[in-house]
C-alpha cells in the first residue's frame, strides 16, 4: 500500500505538472507531491522497522534495511529540494531565463526523476533496476539542458551519450547475470533476475561469467556514479543544469548508482569467493579520489567545484565498500547519507549565492556574510562539513574509514592523506573569500529558502554527535547485508 503510494504519487505528480506545471501554483504543487512521497516513504519505513524487510508485488519489489533508508533519504531530499526550488525557480523565471513551458517541463520531469529513482531503489528485479536507471538518465537529460545555453546543451549531450553507453554495458552485464542465474534457477525466466533469488543461490553461480558480468556492471553503473575515469559527464552536467537538479543529481542519483553497484557486488563476491570485486572497487575509489582532488585545485566555477567534490566523496564511499567488513560498510552507508544531505545543502546555498551575485564564477562571488549572513554561514558551514570537519557527520564516517584503512589497507593511507589535504586546501581556499571579505552581492526580490539548508546541516550535525539507535540498527543490518571480507 505505502509502496504503491510511494511510486504513484510522483508519477501522478509528473502527469499533473505536465499540464499545470507552468501555473502560478506550480512550485507549490511540486512541493506538495514531494511531501506526499515523503510521507509514504516514512510510512514504509515504519513498516520495515516494525516487520523487517518485506517482498511486495509478486516478489517484484523488495524493501530491506539497505534500501529503505535510501528511500527515505531520497524522498526527504526530494522534498527539501522542491521547497528550495520554489523561490529559486521563481527568480530564474523573473530573470527571464525560463519560459513557462520549460518551467512545466522542469516540474514534471522533477517528479518523474524522483519516481524513477524510487523505482530503482525498491525493485527486486535487476532488469527493472536497469530500466529505472536508464529512465532516470533520460528524465534528467532535458533538465540539464533546461537553459538551452550552448554550454548546457553540450553538457546534456555528453551526459546522454556517456551515460547511455555506460548503461548499455550495464545491460549486457545484467544479461550475463541472467544467463548465469538461469542455469541455476532453471529457465523460469521470471524469477531468474530477482535479487532475492540470486542472493539465495549466489554460491552456485558460475564464477567466470559473474566476474565478466561484474566488469560490465561496474563500468556501466560506475559511469553513473562518476568514478574516474568514467566521470567526465558529471562536472559538466552539475555545473550547467539548474541548481536544484545539481542538488538531486549529486545528492541522490549518485547514491542510487552506488546502491546498484553494491547490490551486484554482493552477488558476485558471493559466487567468486575472492576479493576481486573489492579490489576493483578500492582501485576505482582511490583513483577517483586522487584525480578529483587535483581537479578541485584549479576550479573557477563554484558548481563545478562541488561537482568534483562529489566525485571525490563517491570515491571515498566506493573505497570503503571495497574494504568491506562491518565497520567500513557502516561508514560507507553513513557517508552516503551525510554526503547527500550536506552536498544538497551546499548546492542550495550556492544556488542562492549565484543568484545574488549573478554569476557562477568564484571570483565574482565575494563577502556573502556581509550582505546575507545566513547564506554565507550556510555555505561556510556546509563546506566545512563536506571537508570532514567535526562535529559534522562527514567527519564521523571519514574517521571510521581512515582508521579502518590504517588497519586493513595501510598502503592506501598516504593517498588518502594526500587527497584529503589537497581537497581541503583547494575547496577552502576558494570558499573562504566567497564568504568573508568585501562583498559584491545584490538584493533579490524573493527571500531565499534557507530552511532546507539549515535543516540538512542540523541533521548532519546531529549524525556527527549522536546516531539514534533505530537508525544505527538500520545501518548495522544493512552493513551485515552487504557483508564483505
Amino acid at each position, binding site marked *: 500500500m505505502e509502496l504503491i503510494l510511494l511510486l504513484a504519487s510522483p508519477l501522478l505528480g509528473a502527469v499533473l505538472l505536465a499540464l499545470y506545471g507552468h501555473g502560478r501554483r506550480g512550485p507549490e504543487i511540486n512541493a506538495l507531491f514531494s511531501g506526499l512521497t515523503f510521507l509514504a516513504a516514512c510510512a514504509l519505513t515504519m513498516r520495515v522497522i516494525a516487520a523487517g524487510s518485506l517482498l511486495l508485488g509478486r516478489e517484484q519489489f523488495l524493501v530491506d534495511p539497505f534500501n529503505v533508508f535510501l528511500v527515505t533519504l531520497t524522498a526527504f531530499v526530494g522534498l527539501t529540494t522542491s521547497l528550495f526550488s520554489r523561490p529559486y525557480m521563481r527568480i530564474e523565471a523573473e530573470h527571464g531565463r525560463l519560459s513557462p513551458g520549460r518551467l512545466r517541463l522542469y516540474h514534471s520531469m522533477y517528479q518523474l526523476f524522483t519516481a524513477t529513482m524510487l523505482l530503482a531503489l525498491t525493485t527486486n*528485479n535487476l*532488469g*527493472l533496476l*536497469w*530500466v529505472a536507471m*536508464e*529512465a532516470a538518465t*533520460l528524465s534528467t*537529460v*532535458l533538465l540539464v*539542458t533546461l537553459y*538551452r545555453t*550552448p*554550454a548546457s*546543451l*553540450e*553538457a*546534456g*549531450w*555528453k551526459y*546522454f*551519450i556517456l551515460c*547511455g*553507453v555506460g548503461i*548499455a554495458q550495464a*545491460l*549486457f552485464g*545484467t*544479461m*550475463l547475470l*541472467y*544467463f548465469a542465474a*538461469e*542455469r541455476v534457477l532453471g529457465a523460469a*525466466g*521470471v524469477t*531468474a*533476475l530477482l535479487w532475492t533469488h540470486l542472493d539465495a543461490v549466489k554460491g552456485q553461480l*558460475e564464477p*567466470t*561469467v559473474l566476474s*565478466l558480468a561484474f566488469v560490465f556492471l561496474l563500468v556501466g553503473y560506475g559511469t553513473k556514479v562518476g568514478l574516474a575515469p568514467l566521470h567526465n559527464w558529471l*562536472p*559538466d552536467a552539475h*555545473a*550547467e543544469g539548474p541548481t536544484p537538479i545539481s542538488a538531486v543529481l549529486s545528492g541522490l542519483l549518485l547514491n542510487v548508482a552506488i546502491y546498484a553497484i553494491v547490490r551486484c557486488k554482493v552477488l558476485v563476491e558471493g559466487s567468486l569467493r575472492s576479493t576481486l570485486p573489492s579490489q576493483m572497487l578500492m582501485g576505482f575509489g582511490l583513483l577517483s579520489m586522487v584525480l578529483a582532488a587535483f*581537479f578541485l585545485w*584549479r576550479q573557477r566555477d563554484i558548481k563545478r567545484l562541488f561537482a568534483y567534490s562529489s566525485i571525490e566523496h563517491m570515491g571515498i564511499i566506493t573505497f570503503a565498500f571495497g574494504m568491506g567488513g562491518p565497520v567500513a560498510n557502516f561508514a560507507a552507508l553513513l557517508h552516503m547519507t551525510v554526503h547527500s544531505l550536506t552536498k544538497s545543502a551546499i548546492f542550495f546555498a550556492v544556488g542562492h549565492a549565484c543568484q545574488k551575485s549573478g554569476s557562477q564564477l568564484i571570483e565574482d562571488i565575494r563577502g556573502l556574510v556581509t550582505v546575507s549572513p545566513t547564506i554565507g554561514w550556510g555555505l561556510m558551514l556546509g563546506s566545512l562539513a563536506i571537508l570532514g570537519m567535526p562535529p559534522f557527520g562527514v567527519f564521523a564516517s571519514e574517521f571510521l574509514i581512515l582508521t579502518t584503512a590504517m588497519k586493513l589497507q595501510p598502503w592506501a593511507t598516504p593517498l588518502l592523506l594526500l587527497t584529503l589535504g589537497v581537497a581541503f586546501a583547494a575547496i577552502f581556499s576558494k570558499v573562504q573569500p566567497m564568504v568573508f571579505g568585501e562583498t559584491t552581492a545584490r538584493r533579490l526580490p524573493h527571500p531565499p529558502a534557507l530552511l532546507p539548508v539549515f535543516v540538512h546541516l542540523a541533521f548532519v550535525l546531529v549524525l556527527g554527535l549522536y546516531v539514534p539507535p533505530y537508525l544505527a540498527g538500520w545501518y548495522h543490518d544493512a552493513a551485515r547485508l552487504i557483508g564483505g571480507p
Partner: protein
Amino acid sequence: MHSLSLDLQLLNACAALLLLLSFSMLAQRRTVTLVNLLALQGALLVGATLIVAWRTGEAHLYLSALLTLALKVVGLPLLLHRLIRRMDVYWDTEPVINPSATMLIGLLVVVFSFGLAQPISALASTATRSTLGIAIAVILLSFLAMITRRKAMSQVVAFLSMENGLFFGAMSATYGMPMVVELGVALDVLVAMLVLGVFFFQIREQFDSLDLYHLETLKERE
C-alpha cells in the same frame, strides 16, 4: 559445419552478416546509408529472433521480434531519415581515426571478444551459443564507431547498433530477457529516441550544425 540443422545455419549466417554490417558501419561515412545499414541490422535481428522463436517455440520471442520490427526496422530509421532530411546532414566529416586503422583495431576487437565469449558459450545450454561472441563483437565495434564519429547523428546511429548488439547477445545467450525487462528496455529506447529528436533540434538552433566539435568547450585544460 556438418550436422547443423538449417535453422542454425541460417542463424549463424545472420550473425555473420551482423558482424559484417557493423564493420561496414565502421567504415561508412554517408549518414543516410548508415541509417539504412542500421535498419538492415534490425531486420537481421528480427530474422534471427524469429528463427529462434520458431525453433524453441518461446511465445514471448515472437512478441519481442514484433517489437524489434516496429522499433528498430521501421520506427527509428524513419525518424532518423526525417531528421536527416530536416537538417540535411547527409555526410559525416572525416572520422577521428582514419578508416583503415579503425578496421585494424576493429579486427583486434573481434578477436578479443571471441576470446571473451569462449568461456561463456562453453557453458551456454542454448543452441545459439556460438553466436554470443559475435554479439559481443557487435557491441564493441559500435562502441568503436561511436568513438570515431564526429557528427551527432552518426554517433547516435552507432549507439543504436550497440543496442541491437545487446539484443542479439541476449537472444543468443538466453533466448532473450524476461518479458517485463524487454518491454522496459524497448520503452527506454523509444524515449531515448524522442529525447534525441528534441536534442537535435536544440543543438541545431544553437550551432546550426550537428558537428560535435561545437561541443568541446567544457573542459579543464585551457
